[in-house]
Each structure stands twice: as structure tokens, then as C-alpha cells.
């Protein structure tokens, strides 16, 4: 905002924009976390990526029209995820040179182990819940095994609900590529999940 002092109208518009932005982030945060976790396979890294993407969106793109936020946000998130994957690759190469600590359980793993959380529940889950749990597990495993671009196209289109053009913006590719990646992802998932899903 170039003006030094804002009028009441501008302040009201700014408040309205802030509310819209907050609402947008609240709507998108959980799905964004799932998308990031599929790509990174690590909860903390996924949370960091989502937080970074949120910060980048509000600091650099908040003034853009609300309709553009979602594809922009996922584009930013995709960049964050790729950065993390690159860093992880470099770290992996460096760690492979170190003589110890490469395998086995670390102390942190022992500290994270919670016997109460690991204990079986006295309440058997109802059959319906078990069925859903199995479905979630199978689908997430199948999505996790997809090639990165197919996985991304599938999640943007079928999970986040972006259209082809928005998905192309989010993925930084052409609409034709989106359609191809999505079609292949569907084929692979159908083949893996079988008749139960069709």
C-alpha cells in the first residue's frame, strides 16, 4: 500500500481480506498437510512445509485475488516440498560418509516409544470403522507408491478439487500434462486397489 495513511474504507477492506485469508488457510491446511506428507513421508517435515507455504502466501501473494490463492498455495507448497527433498538427498549423501549411526534405532526412537499408546484398546473398533481404516490404509499406500507427478496430479484433482487449469498452475506444467498424469494415476490405482473400489 503506497499511501502513508489509510482511510476507514481501506482499513475495512484490509480486515475483510485478512479474514478471507485466515478462512482460506483454515480450509486448506489439513489437505495441504496430507499432500505434503504423501510427498515427504514425514510428519514434521510436512508440517514445516505447510507452515512455510502459509507464510510465503500471506507475505507475497495476499493481495492477489482470492480465486488465485489455492493454486498459488499449492505451487508454493510443491516448491517447499522439492526443496526439502533436495536437502534430504544432500543430507543422505553426507550421512552415508559417516562411519556410525547409519542404521538401527536411535535414542530418539526409544524416547518416542509410548507403551500406553502402543497398547491394544480394550474397546474393539466397530466393523465399519475397521473397514474404513483398511480402505484408508490401502489407498494411502497405493497413492504413496505413485510416481511423484502422478501422485500430485491425483491429489490436486481428486482430493483438493482443483480443475485442470488450476492443477497446471499448481504443478507448473501444461494442462495436457495434468490430464496425462491424472489418467495414469487413476489407471495405476484402479489396478492396485481392485474391484472393491470400482
Amino acid at each position, binding site marked *: 500500500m503506497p499511501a502513508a495513511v489509510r482511510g476507514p474504507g481501506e482499513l475495512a477492506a484490509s480486515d475483510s481480506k*485478512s479474514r478471507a485469508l485466515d478462512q482460506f*488457510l483454515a480450509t486448506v491446511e489439513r489437505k495441504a*498437510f496430507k499432500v505434503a506428507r504423501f510427498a515427504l513421508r514425514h510428519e514434521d517435515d510436512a508440517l514445516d512445509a505447510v507452515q512455510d507455504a502459509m507464510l510465503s502466501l500471506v507475505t507475497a501473494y495476499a493481495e492477489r485475488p482470492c480465486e488465485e490463492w489455492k493454486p498459488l498455495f499449492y505451487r508454493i507448497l510443491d516448491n517447499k516440498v522439492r526443496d526439502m527433498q533436495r536437502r534430504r538427498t544432500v543430507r543422505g549423501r553426507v550421512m552415508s560418509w559417516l562411519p556410525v549411526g547409519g542404521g538401527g534405532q536411535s535414542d530418539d526412537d526409544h524416547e518416542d516409544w509410548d507403551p500406553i499408546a502402543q497398547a491394544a484398546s480394550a474397546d474393539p473398533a466397530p466393523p465399519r470403522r475397521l473397514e474404513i481404516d483398511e480402505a484408508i490404509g490401502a*489407498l494411502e499406500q497405493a497413492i504413496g507408491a505413485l510416481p511423484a507427478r502422478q501422485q500430485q496430479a491425483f491429489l490436486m484433482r481428486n482430493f483438493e478439487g482443483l480443475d485442470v487449469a488450476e492443477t497446471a498452475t499448481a504443478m507448473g506444467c501444461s494442462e495436457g500434462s495434468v490430464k496425462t498424469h491424472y489418467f495414469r494415476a487413476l489407471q495405476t490405482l484402479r489396478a492396485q486397489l481392485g474391484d472393491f*473400489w*470400482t
Partner: protein
Amino acid sequence: MSTGPGGSDERSEFERRTQAVLDESTARLDGSVRSRLNQARHAAMAAHAERSRSPLARFFGARRLFAPAGAVAAVAVLALVLWTGRPAVQAPLGAMNADGTAAIEDLELLADNDALELASEADVEFYEWALAESDNESGAGPVGS
């Protein structure tokens, strides 16, 4: 989403089911993750609020950091002004130097407790006598001449 993978308006049962399952898994995210996402959102909105403040408000916000130093400087300047600009102590007429300021000896006298008591009693008759004596001396010429 209103269109299918090829841009058609149809979505297969498979797509609908996978979306429903993914939505269910999202709804089941555990509390700690939801809490951390909430914190991340609040942090982002705080950053946005900071950025969207007017330049004037940001300027005065920054000035608040300098408030303690400014207060100290203001007090020092005020003390200096009061010290250098205080009115000169009015000494008796005969005790004034040619430029109207009190001599150092007079300041020492004034600082003396006895002298302060004398001054507070305001012995007008004494001052009148001292003035008359001073006039007499100047009119009679130097003593012993």
C-alpha cells in the same frame, strides 16, 4: 471438482470413493497435528497483520523501541536547560559586579547558613544604612585623602 480427468463432466465411482476415503482420513488427523497446523496458521496471519499495518503505524511502532532512550535524553536536556537558564541570585546592589552578576565571594556568602538567615529576615533598615554609607563614601572621596 466438476469435470473428469479429460475435462468431461463425469466422475467415476472410483474417483468419488477415493475422494471420500481421503476426506475421511483428513478428518481423522490427530489432535497434535491439528494443533500445530492451527499454530502455523496463526503465525502466518500474525506476519500478514504486521505487513498490512500502514507505513505510519509501522514507523511509530518502531519508534516505541527508542522511547526509553528518548526519555533519558529529554530529561538530560531539560536538566541542562534549567541549570544554565536559572535566574541569577539577586544580590544587594553594593555586592554586584559591573556586569550585574554576583561575585564568587558573594555566592559563598549566600551559601552560608547564617547569610541565608540574614537574608530571610529582610533587614530593610540595614540595607538603607549600607546604601547611605556607600553614597557618603563615594561623595567624600577616598578615606585618608
